[in-house]
């Protein structure tokens, strides 16, 4: 049931790559769309077979691939990975649909997109650490090529920077996985939590630290974020959609699956510092976004900020916060993809993303009014306005984290407010006022500028409209995602909490179980915990 999620994109990529050289780009695009539609359909079939009441991995497939080094071909899906699979399938399809006028090496381009999609599927489905690493690395080269070949003027710089950062990320992750084998003396790379009975706390913290930095680069978290704005700025719109919507989620997924999942005790020790890190990341990302004048850089810095919410939620590791983290991954995927699509439309029509130049794009006849409406909806969702996806995810993150880390949560709430600040700046500068794409100089002359922008065809906004509807749908009916993920995230929180209570009860004998108000059950979490 799960192997086809690898076969479909990889075989599709191979077919496109080895298609006749004279195949027109439109036909290649259509082929890629068909493959990705099939992939999305298969994901929906997996969803239909998925039992949301079960907490562990489902629909598992496994065989021992290279047993000498502990590499098993083991696939499985749970409430954490299934929504991300769906997001990956949907956003890759969107990125191919919004690819237009690709004349340079179209076969390679579409094959690389499909390869990335397959690799991301593999990473989300992997039930073995080495298998995850293989897929994690597999998406690196295609993305590097996509930026360095089809990117903007500074693409070489951005692609190299991306490659260096992500390669370091991969090395750290691989180092941590191999270190685990070294320290435990076994080549067991399964997803079993590593407790103090198997590994000393110091070694756990060392490995966890390597994983945190590795995934922190990928997410990205401050101060490992500097590759992202450059990569986004130089990447084409479809690649930005994929990068923000899907590939960053590999980092957050790794954070939850491997950092929290493998080292729950070490995680509990570091949690207060991680919450602090999250707050710094959120505030830095938001403040940096305010300072940007390039729309794309602003949206990418907003990603840096919004990824911080997931670290906060993971640090809190309560059932509600982890569910919020899942919601945030999905909603950020949809919202950031929507925003990058819209920025791409603005750039295509005006030739610029400079907020010092763009004005009045909401002009009903000569501007980009529908694009502007979708942009307003997107920034409202990103700022967490009720009724849209951003609200429910941020609400769950904050509600789930507030009791454990009140100061960090409040700081992140300030970051949420700052989201409204920078996105309203964006909307106000680029979309309100009189239409112009020049700097404001002389008001008399400015009022006489005659602007001729090409219109936006309905088909150009179709992917963005679909994403906007998804953002609204998730905001109005979050129960669907909640049902898929709640059992898994609650189990993850319980696993972390149970271990943590054992560890803490040894450190602090006065610790007592308390009543968990959110789940209505007795949670063995200790009372002596708090911020820092």
């Amino acid at each position: 049931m799960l192997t086809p999620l690898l076969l479909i994109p990889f075989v599709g990529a191979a077919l496109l790559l080895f298609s006749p050289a004279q195949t027109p780009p439109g036909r290649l695009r259509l082929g890629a769309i068909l493959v990705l539609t099939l992939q999305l359909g298969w994901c929906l079939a997996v969803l239909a077979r998925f039992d949301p009441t079960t907490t562990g991995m489902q629909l598992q497939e496994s065989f021992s691939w290279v047993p000498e080094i502990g590499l098993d071909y083991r696939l499985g899906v749970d409430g954490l990975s299934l929504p991300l699979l769906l997001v990956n399938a949907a956003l890759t399809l969107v990125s191919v649909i919004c690819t237009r006028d690709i004349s340079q090496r179209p076969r390679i381009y579409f094959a690389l997109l499909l390869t990335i999609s397959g690799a991301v599927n593999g990473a989300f489905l992997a039930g073995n650490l080495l298998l995850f690493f293989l897929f994690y690395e597999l998406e690196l080269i295609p993305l590097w090529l996509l930026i360095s070949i089809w990117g903007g003027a500074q693409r070489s710089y951005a692609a190299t920077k991306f490659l260096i950062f992500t390669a370091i990320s991969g090395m750290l992750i691989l180092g941590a996985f191999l270190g685990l084998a070294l320290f435990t003396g076994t080549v067991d790379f399964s997803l079993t939590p590593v407790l103090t009975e198997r590994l000393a706390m110091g070694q756990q913290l060392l490995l966890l630290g390597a994983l945190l930095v590795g995934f922190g680069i990928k997410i990205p978290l401050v101060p490992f974020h500097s590759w992202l704005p450059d990569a986004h700025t130089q990447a084409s719109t479809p690649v930005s959609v994929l990068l923000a919507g899907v590939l960053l989620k590999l980092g957050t997924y790794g954070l939850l699956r491997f950092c929290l999942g493998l080292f729950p005790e070490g995680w509990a020790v570091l949690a207060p510092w991680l919450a602090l890190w999250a707050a710094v990341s959120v505030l830095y990302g938001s403040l940096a976004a305010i300072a940007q004048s390039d729309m794309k850089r602003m949206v990418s810095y907003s990603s840096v900020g919004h990824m911080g919410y997931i670290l906060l939620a993971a640090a809190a590791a309560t059932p509600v916060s982890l569910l919020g983290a899942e919601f945030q991954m999905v909603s950020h995927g949809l919202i950031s993809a929507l925003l990058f699509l819209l920025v791409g439309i603005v750039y295509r029509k005006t030739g610029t993303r400079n907020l010092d130049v763009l004005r009045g794009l909401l002009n009903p006849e000569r501007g980009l009014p529908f694009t502007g409406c979708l942009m307003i909806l997107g920034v409202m969702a990103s700022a967490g306005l009720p009724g849209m996806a951003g609200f429910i995810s941020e609400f769950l993150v904050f509600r789930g984290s507030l009791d454990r880390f009140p100061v960090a949560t409040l700081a992140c709430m300030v970051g949420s407010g700052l989201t409204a600040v920078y996105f309203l700046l964006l909307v106000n500068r680029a979309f309100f006022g009189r239409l112009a794409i020049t700097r404001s100089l002389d008001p008399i002359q400015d009022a006489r500028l005659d602007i001729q922008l090409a219109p936006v065809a309905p088909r150009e906004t179709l992917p963005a409209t679909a994403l906007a509807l998804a953002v609204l749908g998730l905001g109005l009916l979050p129960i669907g995602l909640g049902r898929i993920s709640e059992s898994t995230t609650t189990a993850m929180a319980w696993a972390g909490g149970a271990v943590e209570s054992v560890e803490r009860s040894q450190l602090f004998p006065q610790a007592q179980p308390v009543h968990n108000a959110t789940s209505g059950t007795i949670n063995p979490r200790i009372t002596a915990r708090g911020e820092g």
Partner: protein
Amino acid sequence: MPVIPELLTRAGGMPSLEALTERLLAGDTLLLDTPDNLVEVVDSLASYGVVLDAYSTNLMYQAEAQFLNPFPLFKYLDGDLSFAKIWRHLCHDRINYEYAEYCMKAMLWHGTGGLDRYLDSPDFDASCAQIIRRKLRRDPLLALLHPLFPAFLPELIRMAATTHALGQFWRVMSDLFLNLAEAEVQGRISGIAAVVEFISAGLQRAAPEAITYAVVIDGESHWVLPPEAGLTFLTDVAVPYVEAVFLRGMPFFGTVSFNAQAQQISPDQSQFTYGALFADPLPTMGAGIPPSLLMQDMGRHLPERLHQRYLRQGRGDGDGRVKLCASFQKAMFCVTNGAIAGTFPAPLSSGDPAAQAANHAHATGWAHRLAASRTDCLGWDGRADQCLP
């Protein structure tokens, strides 16, 4: 970051004060005489004529049949209360009469010319008092309202009088513009100069027509603007209309207080420059932009020739109303041009230094008023008709 293509933005050239003065004194038209400009002007005035016909009918209906009606719910239906008419109205299959009211309020508020002087005269106050007395006999609500707010009903009557006067003015202008279109079809109009001359002649012909207005209360007719007031078409309505709507206008509703607080609006009403000749066509169809209503109406009655021309430019129908607004502005410059040409104190060919000085003063005065207007549309920089394919 790519360089913004030059053609994506351009600012039209604005003629200098001296150039405007020279052009007026030379008897040249303000608008460049080109075949494209001719089509734009004639066809936009043809659609304007159709719309003015509807505005005029409705304004006079409002002033006569909805006089002092405290709840004029059906004032835009011209007395036709059939379900079909109401349904079309609710579906917005209708003329935007709100624009006509907007122009009326601009005239009322700026209050220049003979009409306004009469509305502030004791004779008008006496007529009002008599009309209100008759009206209150059968209207208990107004009878209650009037003692509480004694200035309210006279103000409503002033508004009704302005409404009716504007209706009469537009009646004449509607016929004039439709005749112009017909003359162009017949080949009697071959250039912008002929358009200006046609309009100027039409205005002069209608100049002495009397402006009167009477209302019927309980079967008895009462003069609001009696013939004895001596109000005439050109000086008492047309000139104040041009002053209020073409030149001064009003800052848009909803922005006036903010702009006033920012000291962006002159405290001197006579210095206002928000009229049709100063309007920016680009925001047309934006919320709260009054020309949007007119362009929506005109767009429904656009001659096919101009429509086809618009289809070949820019976004075709997509930005048709912006293009129509730009064409309409050119037409309004022609109307203004006609008014200026018809009001020179002496013939332009006069060799008398005193006459020449008077004409120069007249031309300079108008050039000053037009200097900051949208003269960039006149095409003097040779790029007025340039559009992206």
